């Protein structure tokens, strides 16, 4: 509609007002025209008064239409830096026929926003979009019914553009969403019958769009968790041994000398059990107090191995074994195969190491608590905090603020619990900021892994048998603060997706008649705390499995892309294989020249996480004298079904590939018997500018398919491609990462 039409619409409304038409009622909801800003304020005051989650079957739970014809989305997924506050509003705007600039979202809050599950598993779009789409479709249906009444036109004669409803055959008949309900509640339950758009009609979904949070993030206006303050608060820090011990050990206080911080103004010790924190009015005083407080800790009862002995310890440890997938007789198929390849890998503990350590504020009172933190799942955080401080869940309000990227289960819950407990002990609001060594040292690590894989093929290059055995441990269930404060015994998550051998990555992309996958689970209490880390264990699975696949191709004298092509039946896997190979410029050729001191090679790899399809190709250089590896070029192709905003997914792929460079070249938690020894960026190096290869992200768009996740899937593929490129460059297989100079020289001399 033209600007003049909009103007006419507003003029008409004022005329109606002047003529007393404001009393026109709507049978549907029995309400008048827009009431303006006061109603919007009242609406906001109402929101938040009650503990959530709010009724997911009510339109008001998800959407508000404001008097200025803009919309506010209340969604259950958090902005972790991955672009959710742009992409999910786009989904709502698509259904509502609004422009992207007309819709915004609010931060997550257990008293306001609906429960859609945690923001993990790369599921913001896969699991978040259907709920948002449904709510927006219900709202659109309700708005059109109101417009139909107001304009005296049947719904099928109405069209919407930018939140302006007009009659198709009578362009002068116009009303905006804002005029219809602006600032007031819908008070309507879902009908279950609202039609959603045909993807063929999408205007916004599938098109590149600028992120909404970009400007504030480059000006310094953006308020991160670390900027959150509470009135009358104290600054707090935790006091723990530098570097966690085995999960089952916790950390036991032998003695504590409070007089050691007597010289710091206002500094206090807050203690419950083995949980110790300090608080002071000034932040630097809290930092100093935490460093100066004299605490003697008991020696570990379950000493960890030195880093060099980690895998020997894993091999000699007791395990719970379980076959998690089996079809056909894998052993018979392997013994009958014309060609077989076997490969064994050792993959280290790695950590989230968010760029900013976690921070949380808490105001705990006798009968209520407000916690602000960077949780991936505010409702789960509420449950844990409530249990710890002895309140009912409904008495605890948890609000989300973005911190730095978390890449999974960093210390956000531990930090939120530490803030809550410190506030309760201090009788005052506190701001708990973990120090770098707290976050690195007490992270919920990605577990280490030993993989043993055997693959067989017939003389035509068809894979006939596959067996994968994986050694790892599960995630820890008890937060460190809870464990230290209450003595709760260490407990692990039951085995399941992301902590067991992954059938999608371990052979799942190929048509294999006989296959067996076996878990060997270590006792969780003897190892470091663990949690989901971006592409959990999938880097290790793909690095292991895909090198064996490559070895088979090599033995058969086949190009590795062609060999994979021959064994894939699924179009989605074929699609990312071809996309990665094409973007890389892959041509069949003999093995690379291995004469020069610095040799280069290329590799291909496939992998994923829980859904989606990832393919990658890598070119690397290996200095055979020094053992230095440089990654020159990485291509990552991702089929994530319907991609809402390809620009955001390209950024996600780029980030995945750069993080994979760090995890393949540098990242490894150092262990000593006394505890984890990677406590900062010097002892836990990550990818830097100078490590960054030429990166090519490729989005394989499938607009008619369900969205399936885009936050981690190409990492596994890239890890495999880098491993295979090492062989192409050197003629040697590398069985362990990160590819430090020592490991590379060992591999070259093997």
């Amino acid at each position: 509609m033209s600007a003049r039409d909009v103007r006419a619409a507003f003029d008409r409304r004022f005329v109606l007002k002047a003529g007393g038409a404001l009393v026109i009622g709507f049978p549907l909801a029995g309400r008048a025209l827009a009431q303006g800003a006061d109603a919007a304020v009242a609406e906001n005051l109402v929101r938040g008064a009650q503990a959530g989650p709010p009724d997911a079957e009510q339109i008001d739970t998800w959407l508000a239409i404001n008097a200025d014809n803009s919309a506010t989305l209340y969604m259950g997924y958090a902005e972790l830096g991955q672009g959710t506050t742009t992409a999910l509003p786009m989904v709502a705007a698509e259904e509502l026929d609004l422009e992207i600039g007309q819709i915004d979202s609010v931060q997550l809050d257990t008293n306001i926003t609906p429960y859609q599950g945690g923001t993990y598993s790369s599921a913001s779009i896969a699991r978040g979009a259907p709920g948002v789409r449904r709510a927006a479709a219900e709202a659109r249906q309700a708005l059109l019914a109101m417009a139909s009444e107001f304009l005296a036109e049947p719904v099928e004669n109405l069209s919407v553009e930018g939140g302006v409803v007009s009659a198709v055959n009578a362009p002068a008949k116009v009303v905006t969403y804002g005029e219809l309900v602006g600032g007031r509640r819908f008070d309507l339950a879902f009908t279950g019958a609202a039609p959603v758009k045909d993807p063929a009609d999408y205007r916004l979904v599938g098109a590149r769009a600028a992120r909404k949070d970009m400007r504030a993030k480059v000006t310094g206006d953006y308020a991160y968790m670390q900027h959150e303050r509470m009135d009358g608060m104290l600054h707090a820090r935790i006091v723990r041994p530098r570097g966690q011990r085995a999960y089952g050990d916790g950390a036991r206080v032998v003695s504590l000398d409070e007089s050691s911080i007597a010289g710091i103004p206002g500094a206090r010790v807050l203690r419950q059990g083995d949980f110790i924190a300090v608080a002071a009015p000034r932040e630097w005083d809290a930092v100093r107090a935490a460093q100066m407080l004299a605490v003697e800790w008991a020696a570990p009862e379950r000493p960890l191995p030195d880093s060099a002995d980690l895998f020997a310890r894993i091999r000699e440890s007791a395990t719970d074994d379980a076959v998690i997938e089996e079809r056909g007789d894998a052993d018979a198929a392997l013994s009958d195969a014309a060609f077989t390849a076997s490969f064994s890998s050792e993959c280290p503990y790695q950590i989230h190491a968010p760029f900013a350590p976690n921070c949380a504020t808490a105001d705990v009172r006798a009968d209520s608590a407000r916690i602000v933190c960077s949780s991936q799942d505010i409702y789960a955080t509420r449950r844990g905090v409530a249990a710890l401080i002895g309140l009912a869940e409904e008495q605890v309000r948890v609000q989300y603020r973005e911190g730095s990227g978390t890449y999974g289960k960093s210390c956000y819950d531990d930090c939120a619990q530490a803030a809550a407990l410190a506030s309760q002990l201090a009788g005052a609001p506190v701001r708990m900021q973990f120090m770098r060594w707290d976050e690195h040292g007490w992270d919920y690590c990605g577990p280490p892994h030993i993989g043993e894989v055997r693959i067989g093929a017939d003389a035509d290059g068809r894979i006939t048998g596959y067996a994968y055995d994986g050694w790892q441990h599960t995630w820890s269930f008890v937060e460190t603060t809870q464990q230290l404060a209450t003595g709760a015994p260490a407990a692990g998550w039951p085995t399941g997706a992301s902590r067991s051998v992954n059938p999608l990555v371990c052979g799942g992309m190929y048509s294999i008649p006989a296959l067996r996958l076996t878990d060997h689970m270590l006792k969780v209490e003897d190892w470091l705390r663990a949690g989901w880390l971006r592409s959990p264990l999938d880097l290790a699975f793909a690095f292991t499995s895909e090198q064996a696949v490559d070895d088979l191709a090599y033995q058969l004298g086949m190009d590795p892309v062609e060999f994979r092509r021959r064994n894939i039946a699924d179009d989605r896997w074929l699609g990312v294989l071809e996309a990665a190979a094409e973007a890389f410029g892959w041509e069949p050729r003999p093995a690379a020249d291995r004469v020069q001191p610095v040799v280069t090679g290329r590799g291909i790899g496939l992998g994923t996480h829980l859904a989606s399809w990832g393919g990658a190709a890598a070119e690397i250089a290996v200095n055979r004298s020094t053992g230095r590896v440089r990654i020159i070029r990485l291509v990552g192709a991702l089929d994530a079904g319907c991609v809402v905003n390809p620009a955001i997914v390209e950024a996600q792929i780029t980030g995945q590939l750069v993080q994979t460079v760090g995890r393949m070249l540098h990242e490894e938690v150092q262990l000593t018997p006394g505890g984890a020894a990677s406590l900062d960026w010097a002892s836990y190096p990550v990818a830097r500018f100078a490590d960054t290869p030429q990166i090519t992200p490729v989005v394989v768009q499938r607009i008619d398919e369900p969205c399936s996740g885009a936050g981690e899937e190409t990492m596994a593929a890239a890890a495999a491609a880098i491993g295979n490129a090492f062989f192409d460059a050197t003629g040697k297989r590398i069985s362990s990462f990160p590819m430090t100079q020592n490991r590379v020289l060992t591999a070259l001399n093997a």
Partner: protein
Amino acid sequence: MAQTLIVNGEARESDSDPDTPLLYVLADELGLKGPRFGCGLAQCGSCSVLVDGVEVRSCVTPVAAVTNARITTLEGLPGLYAEQAGLTDAPELTPLQQAMIDEQAVQCGYCYNGMIVKASELLAANPDPSDAQIVDHMNGHLCRCGTYPRIVAAVRRAARAMNGGAQ
């Protein structure tokens, strides 16, 4: 003990102890959101500010060491840029900030305080840096989201814009 700091062109009072790291004065006393805590060890660049035009890590710089210096934070970069470029008024965004938006570089964005401060230092000294010079200059700043390629592209784009070239 009161001391005076010159922050983004304004005199500001601080009553922190002289050995307090500058970061805590900027963040807690002055309420600035640009410089922010990342490691407290001068390893990551999260807390970077310019002191007399030179990037320093405010998390390890005692406030007493900079009382006579001109401190510029992320918030003050448009003003500093106007001064350097001979403009009467400070723009809303520096060409570098605009280039970061144009390249859609940011993910979580927490490291961008340091990234923008450090790259501003580079562009003030070298209006046409090569990729190798950009990487070399920026290599002490970490980005855990892996946005390095887009940061390099944004610095290049900003240099072109500042030199009057096509964006």
